[in-house]
């Protein structure tokens, strides 16, 4: 084997056949952005319908298809693949590895995603319409009462689950096996740590999701009765299996986001991360606890009181390690020489808004109170604070932070900051009022609502259009940077940034660390 360097191949085959972690990362990132736009378009339809009370634009059945596909696409198509893309790009560069541990499988993990989502989206045009049972697809809505397209939904979940499992196995092998000499576990950047733990979660729970959809498939087509009381099964069993996957899933979404802000906040505070070790332990503690809290989504289905209490206290415990993290981020900024470039703005936005989402989570975790909040817009507000202002804001921060390293060009800072402020305001105008309508009793997943909720819903819709529009600006900024941004060749694009990725040339060469760097 010669030791000469190969650049990328030319044309389409570069992307189809690639084994390069940077190419694959790029594909994941663009794919997830496309899904973000698609899921966003569905959200716009939802908000347009809810702009005023009464039936405005779409049929109720179609409205349900929109909420379902919006949730599924955002969770599985936008947020998860975006962080996998980031992991592909950054983990090898952060630990001094030449590539991911299993490069060919890496390519396969990516390429099964687009067709899986194509199949999912194509259900919109099938007889009986797309799945309309919510992104949590509770039985019997998703079995006895499901449209025929549910079968395609089931198989697309299988395929994207397979993709996630292979992607995670790859990340685990890379982190465990490919660290440069001297890069001990406790020297790894926090982003690598959070992804390692996320990958464990994924390998543990994606198969359970596969089990859940398999049981659905069998009930629908092969006469079993897992979720049918008439045959001795139980629809609530579905909820247990689903949430055993579902709650760890929300941490799968947020832990890499934690990792990102743990990289960015120190860089723009020009101080090392406060409490590194406690960050690692807190992440592990959150991951562990996430396995024993799932039924906090099911307080109202009729669990024995002992179950309600157990899941209530276990859920509340999660606030402790989460609090440790928030404390550490704030303390990192304390007396730092801070500057507020776009990545930092999004990270601070994350910090403030995620904390609000954490607090509403704490409110929801109180079982008796949840009897009031459950399935209301309060829950919708809660999870959008943690998933949009949490995961999506941090992902946006990550793009601004590492984009100059990826393409050797600087984005337009003014436009970036404008994007932040519009997003920040748009987001809060959208979701803050939803706390109020939720507390006042407005149910979620309903195309029409009582008149007293009209004003807040109009606000929500206006905010959503603003937030949605600001993403177009983001897209424009990213493309403009790639084609015509101000070139930069500083290895350290940000003077406060630390880590191996800032020691390689800018733009990052096609192959990095073919011989491992020395880590002190």
């Amino acid at each position: 084997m010669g030791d000469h360097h190969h650049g990328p191949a030319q044309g389409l085959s570069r992307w189809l056949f690639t084994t390069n972690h940077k190419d694959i990362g790029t594909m994941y990132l663009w794919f997830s952005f496309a899904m973000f736009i698609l899921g966003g378009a569905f959200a716009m339809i939802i908000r347009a319908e809810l702009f005023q009370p009464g039936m405005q634009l779409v049929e109720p059945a179609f409205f349900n298809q929109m909420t379902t596909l919006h949730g599924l696409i955002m969770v599985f198509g936008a947020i998860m693949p975006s962080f996998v893309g980031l992991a592909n790009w950054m983990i090898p560069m952060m630990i001094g590895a030449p590539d991911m541990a299993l490069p060919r499988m890496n390519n396969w993990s990516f390429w099964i995603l687009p067709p899986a989502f194509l199949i999912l989206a194509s259900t919109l045009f099938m007889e009986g319409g797309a799945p309309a049972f919510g992104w949590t697809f509770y039985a019997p809505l998703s079995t006895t009462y499901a449209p025929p397209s549910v079968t395609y939904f089931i198989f697309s979940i299988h395929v994207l689950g397979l993709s996630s499992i292979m992607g995670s196995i790859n990340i685990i092998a890379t982190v465990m096996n490919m660290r440069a000499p001297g890069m001990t576990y406790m020297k790894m950047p926090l982003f690598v740590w959070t992804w390692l733990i996320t990958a464990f979660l994924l390998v543990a729970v994606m198969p359970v999701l596969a089990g859940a959809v398999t049981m659905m498939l069998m009930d629908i087509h092969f006469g079993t009765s897992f979720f049918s009381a008439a045959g001795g099964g139980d629809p609530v069993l579905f909820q247990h299996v689903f949430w055993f996957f579902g709650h760890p899933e929300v941490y799968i979404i947020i832990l890499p986001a934690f990792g990102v802000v743990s990289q960015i906040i120190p860089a723009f505070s020009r101080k090392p991360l406060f409490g590194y070790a406690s960050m690692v332990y807190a992440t592990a503690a959150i991951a562990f606890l996430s396995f024993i809290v799932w039924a906090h989504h099911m307080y109202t289905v009729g669990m024995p009181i002992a179950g309600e209490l157990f899941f209530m206290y276990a859920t509340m415990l999660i606030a402790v390690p989460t609090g440790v993290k928030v404390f550490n981020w704030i303390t990192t900024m304390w007396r730092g020489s801070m500057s507020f470039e776009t990545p930092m703005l999004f990270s601070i936005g994350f910090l403030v808004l995620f904390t609000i989402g954490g607090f509403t989570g704490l409110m929801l975790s109180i079982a008796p109170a949840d009897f009031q909040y459950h399935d209301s817009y309060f829950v919708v507000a809660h999870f959008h604070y943690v998933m949009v202002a949490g995961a999506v804001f941090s992902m946006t921060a990550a793009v601004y932070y590492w984009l100059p390293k990826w393409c050797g060009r600087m984005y337009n800072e003014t436009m970036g900051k404008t994007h932040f402020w519009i997003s920040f305001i748009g987001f809060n105008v959208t979701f803050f009022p939803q706390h109020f309508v939720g507390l006042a009793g407005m149910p979620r997943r309903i195309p029409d609502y009582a008149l007293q909720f009209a004003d807040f819903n109009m606000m929500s819709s206006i905010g959503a259009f603003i937030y949605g529009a600001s993403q177009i600006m983001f897209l424009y900024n990213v493309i403009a940077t790639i084609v015509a941004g101000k070139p930069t060749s500083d290895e350290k694009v940000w003077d406060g940034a630390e880590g191996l990725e800032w020691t390689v040339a800018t733009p990052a060469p096609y192959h990095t660390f073919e011989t491992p760097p020395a880590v002190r």
Partner: protein
Amino acid sequence: MSDQATTHEKYYVPEKSSMAVFATIGLIMSTFGAATAMNQATFGDGEASFTTMYIGLCIFAAVLFSWFRITIKENLAGMNSVQLKKSYVIGMFWFIFSEVMFFAAFFGALFYVRTLSGPWLAGEGEGGAWNHLLWEGFQYSWPMMQTPQEAVGGVSNQVMANMGTFTSAHKSMAFAEVDAWYKWLPMWNTIILLTSSGTVHIAHEGLLSGNKSRFNLWLGITVGLGVIFVGLQMLEYYEAYAHFGLTLNSGVYGSTFFMLTGFHGFHVLMGTFMLGVQLVRSLKAGHFTSDDHFGFEASSWYWHFVDVVWVGLFLFVYIL
């Protein structure tokens, strides 16, 4: 530490590969084809057509074959560093872990029905208030020999909507119901599978001590035991359908029974096939040395995993 560049063994990163794209085509065709055929069978009026699925599966099998072939060739050509081999080990370990979690979902369902929701349906605990409205007369027992639907007198008497008729078996697979112990297939299957874990271990020891003929012999025995297991399992299914009235439609007992044993049986089939491939590689191509035999090792871990799952099945599906 000495100069890194000189002591460093290069990690093999293949330049590019078209296999992922073809594997994707195979996978998507088979899943899409399967979904279409199932929908035709359940919701349509025409015949179900499995052609797309079969073509997809063939493509997929062909790609996997060449994928593994290339990987093996690369290893024989000495391209795999010690570090890369460790990546394979880690990969295989976590793959098996993910399989464990897949089974955990079905075991979880079984435990949930048996300890919680089954008794609730029969009016125990907090579910009791509704029992006389929904499933009057339903008694819980395991194996569940009468479904709630049957207890109220069939679909027409049932208050709740559902997807069909659930007719329970007249005889279960439990140990309590066998006429004579030696006629009890699960026991023989347990003996076979536990033995096979031992034989694969002996084969491994043979390989480690450089004794290839001992390796081939005991690996062959293991594959044979795997085939016998699958055969007996098929016999058991035949018995269930033909003589016990135990089918997928037999309520939740049939559901959990067939899903757990079915997925396990499928995994045994896979494991047997994997070990069989290693046997052929050893016999025909002379592969494997005492210090380089990952293909065999990975298959044998898989085999032990399948064995452990069986012990769980034997306990919770057949005995307890």
